[in-house]
């Protein structure tokens, strides 16, 4: 014990290499912030490109670290392993795509500011810390960096009442959730005397736990699950999701709905699987309740939405339900399936918002399902992309969304919860109805508007690749599944 403690407090500069992506990103943020101050308004594009380059290099740095095994540095508060590296690469790629889609939108709606990109970079930094956090404190720190950046990003459209309301709502509810999470962490820290995940794991799996210790541990667990569920937006902690999705500028919604989910799942894995894995029986039950409620509420309430951002918010909630179901199975393949689901969900969600953003014009914010009317005629290619995304989200093969649901269901049935699988598929059929509504709008409804949708080349290209991936990964899901399984 004393030996490891000593090692923990040694500082070896060579270990810094494992935090290189974070260090690089932080330095870039500072530099970009400084450069941006001196840029004239007409040169703001430079900030955009610099940010993209910074994210890209961070992705490369993370990618290079894959396969280095498990490295715990900074006195046991920061971990590098394949999970961290792969998740970081996924987050970077998703962020790059999100920024590509956002650019036109930000220009149209006068949101193209240096702060926007700096805040996005900061949020990414926060998420990287979350993914690599190996003590309760680092995890919380990462979460707060992310949350504070997001609150500001949401409210960045100051002139819009909706956006400010959404930002404030997210801030207040987010603060409560952070408080609950912190409360749970304090209980766990109080009972075992360490913030380190490995030591918590060791303590929690100890056979010599007294029942009073067990009780406090369980209490802490419940609060941590609540905190995680809030960040993921699982029912009944979902109330912020629709309002924030609707109120935020669409580019922020796109970011919010995709990349942070990866980070939240990573935090879930660190806290609940690596830290409190021995309490899996307890949190599985909680997860099953959260999952079924999320799938149910997400599917049913989405039926009544006419605002597509709200509809996608509820659709996200139901996807989150499936992800939680995967974790609830408690098997390695189940965890892998859940990670696979997160990746595919991010791929689909970004593409969906990408198409919504395409429909924006100067002075026109595309928000309603009816805005898609006649898209099949106006821009057959983009309509086809949206068709693929919607069918994939509904879980229709051969698109990727089917396999992610299928893998989860397979594990659920395997764990003996056939009735859960039946409930889940019934809601999946119900949710197909609202995805079909978009297809109906695009293809079956006639529209007076026949002007094709215009968009810059890079958006078109990336969006096409994005949608084609949804199909291509669907034809060969085994490669992605191998990656998802390799993180455990």
């Amino acid at each position, binding site marked *: 014990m004393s030996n490891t403690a000593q090692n923990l407090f040694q500082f070896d500069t060579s270990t810094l290499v494992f935090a290189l992506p974070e260090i690089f990103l932080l330095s870039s943020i500072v530099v970009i912030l400084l450069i941006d101050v001196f840029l004239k308004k007409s040169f703001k594009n430079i900030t955009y490109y610099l940010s993209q380059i910074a994210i890209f290099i961070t992705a490369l740095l993370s990618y290079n670290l894959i396969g280095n095994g498990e490295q715990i540095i900074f006195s046991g508060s920061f971990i590098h392993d394949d999970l961290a590296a792969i998740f970081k690469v996924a987050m970077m790629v998703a962020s790059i795509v999100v920024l590509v889609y956002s650019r036109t939108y930000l220009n149209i709606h006068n949101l193209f500011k240096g702060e926007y990109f700096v805040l996005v970079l900061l949020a990414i930094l926060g998420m990287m810390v979350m993914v690599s956090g190996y003590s309760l404190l680092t995890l919380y720190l990462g979460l707060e960096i992310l949350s504070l950046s997001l609150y500001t990003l949401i409210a960045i459209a100051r002139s819009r009442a909706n956006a400010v309301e959404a930002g404030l709502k997210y801030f207040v509810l987010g603060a409560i959730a952070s408080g609950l999470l912190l409360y749970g962490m304090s209980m766990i820290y109080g009972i075992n005397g360490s913030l380190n995940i490995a030591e918590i794991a060791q303590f929690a799996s100890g056979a010599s736990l007294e029942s009073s210790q067990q009780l406090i541990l369980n209490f802490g667990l419940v609060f941590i699950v609540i905190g995680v569920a809030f960040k993921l937006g699982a029912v009944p902690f979902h109330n912020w999701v629709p309002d924030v999705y609707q109120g935020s500028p669409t580019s922020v919604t796109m970011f919010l709905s995709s990349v942070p989910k990866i980070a939240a799942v990573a935090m879930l894995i660190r806290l609940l699987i690596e830290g409190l894995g021995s309490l899996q029986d307890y949190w599985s039950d909680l997860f099953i309740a959260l999952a079924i409620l999320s799938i149910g509420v997400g599917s049913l309430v989405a039926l009544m939405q006419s605002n597509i951002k709200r509809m996608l918010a509820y659709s996200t909630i139901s996807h989150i339900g499936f992800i939680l179901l995967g974790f609830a199975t408690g098997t390695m393949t189940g965890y892998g399936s859940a990670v696979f689901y997160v990746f595919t969900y991010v791929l689909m969600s970004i593409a969906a918002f990408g198409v919504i953003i395409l429909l924006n014009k100067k002075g026109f914010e595309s928000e309603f399902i009816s805005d898609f009317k006649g898209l099949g005629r106006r821009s*057959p290619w983009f309509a086809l992309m949206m068709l693929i995304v919607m069918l994939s989200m509904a879980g*229709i093969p051969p698109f990727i969304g089917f*396999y992610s649901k*299928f893998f989860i269901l397979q594990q659920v049935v395997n764990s003996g919860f056939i009735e859960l699988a039946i409930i889940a598929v019934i809601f999946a*059929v119900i949710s197909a109805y609202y995805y*079909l509504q978009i297809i109906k709008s695009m293809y079956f409804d006639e529209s007076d508007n026949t002007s094709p949708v215009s968009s810059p080349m890079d958006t078109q290209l990336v969006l096409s690749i994005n949608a084609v991936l949804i199909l291509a990964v669907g034809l060969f899901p085994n490669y992605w*599944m*191998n990656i998802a399984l390799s993180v455990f």
Partner: protein
Amino acid sequence: MEQVLLSLLIWMPILGGFATLIVGNQRALSAKWVALSLSLIVFILSLGLYTGFDNTTHLMQFVEKSSWISQFNINYHLGVDGISMPLIILTTFSTILVIIAGWEVIQNRPAHYMAAFLMMEGLIIGVFSALDAILYYVFWEASLIPMLLIIGIWGGDNRIYASIKFFLYTFIGSVFMLISMIYMYNIGGSFGILDMHALSLTMTEQSWIFWAFFLAFAVKVPMFPVHTWLPDAHVQAPTGGSVILAAIMLKMGGYGFFRFSLPITPDASLNFSDIVIVISLIAIVYIGFVALVQRDMKKLIAYSSISHMGFVTLGLFAMFLAVKNSYEGALLGLEGAMVQMISHGFISAAMFLVVGVLYDRLHSREISTYGGVINSMPKFTGFAVLFAMANAGLPATSGFVGEFMVILGAMQANFWISTLAATTLILGAAYTLWMVKRVFWGPIHNDAVKSLNDINAREFFILGVLALAVIIMGVYPQPVIEVMHSSIEHLLNQALTSKLAI
């Protein structure tokens, strides 16, 4: 060639569909030629299945197998036997007709229309040749997408309702099938359909799995009382959509019973055969009466489809009763069910094309719009009457063969079952011939009918080819029966071997 023939048949039309999309609506004529030549090539290739087929074995032929999703032991496993091979040829055959039938008629986005049918062709061939349950499910569900779009984009006034109803009905039916497949995988460790055939299951398990599969297939066939999507879908779909729907998509349900229900859950099938027989008889008789009172020609044919498909499920499940008296009777019933599927493929396609010809001219499906069509369209009336006779089950047409075999098989089961089933021959004659009388004969009520042009060469060709098919199969069904004989016999033995672990 033999090793990749099935893959070619699946992927050529799908990729060809994409090619047609790329050619685009601006170059509609080239797109149509691409589609037509592709469908012809695929048809010719599919004949290779027939010529290279070995009649003497029930084993899968033209097998392809490679690992697909290794984590769950899912394989890209294809193969055909005597049950699936005729259905594949039926599919490639019908697709050509549909593409020719839509040649001039479809003005709205013609390239997309052709592409949808090509992709559907590939997906449906995938359904019939998949030997891995997940591969099968992927094709099964994916084939809904083109049909959804075909009904929704090119359909009639109420197309949105019909297309979404069609989609959701089939979707809810099939998700339980997926769960059953997963369940069997968790017992046996394989998604291979042939492995599932050999899987030992308790009665409780079999019952659940039976009903899960039953729901999926009954919706597709469709059986009473889950048939209500079909009249809507048929009435709203464009002619080509109706043809594919009736000629092939309904067969996916019947095929499912052959491939999954009987061999995987033989004991449950035996146990619940009475229920299925009753449901089938209701479909045959009651839906026959419903067809009698229709005013819309397409609706009438849609109901007649349901009634005829009732014979398929009757033949399939009456065999459990028939086998007590005679093994040959049971075999006859099963083969009859299969022949009935093929024959119905031709006849229903022909009937919908006949209605399509009239609809293209007067844009009405109402029987009352017409009357005395024979005066202006004599050639067309000749074809129409022939197909109507076949639909009514006239001997020497294919309609007679299948129904007669099923009735004979059912006779071994129970006199009353076969008597009830035989009433359809009368009912079918009644509703079909009554429609013919009101549409083609009698006085002309409508001035527009007077100035109708008779069918052109294109229409003559498709109706002529179908007429030949109907007559040849009616006079000489032997080749079709020979091809399926070994497979059906094997299936019968599988269905009669109890799986209950002792």
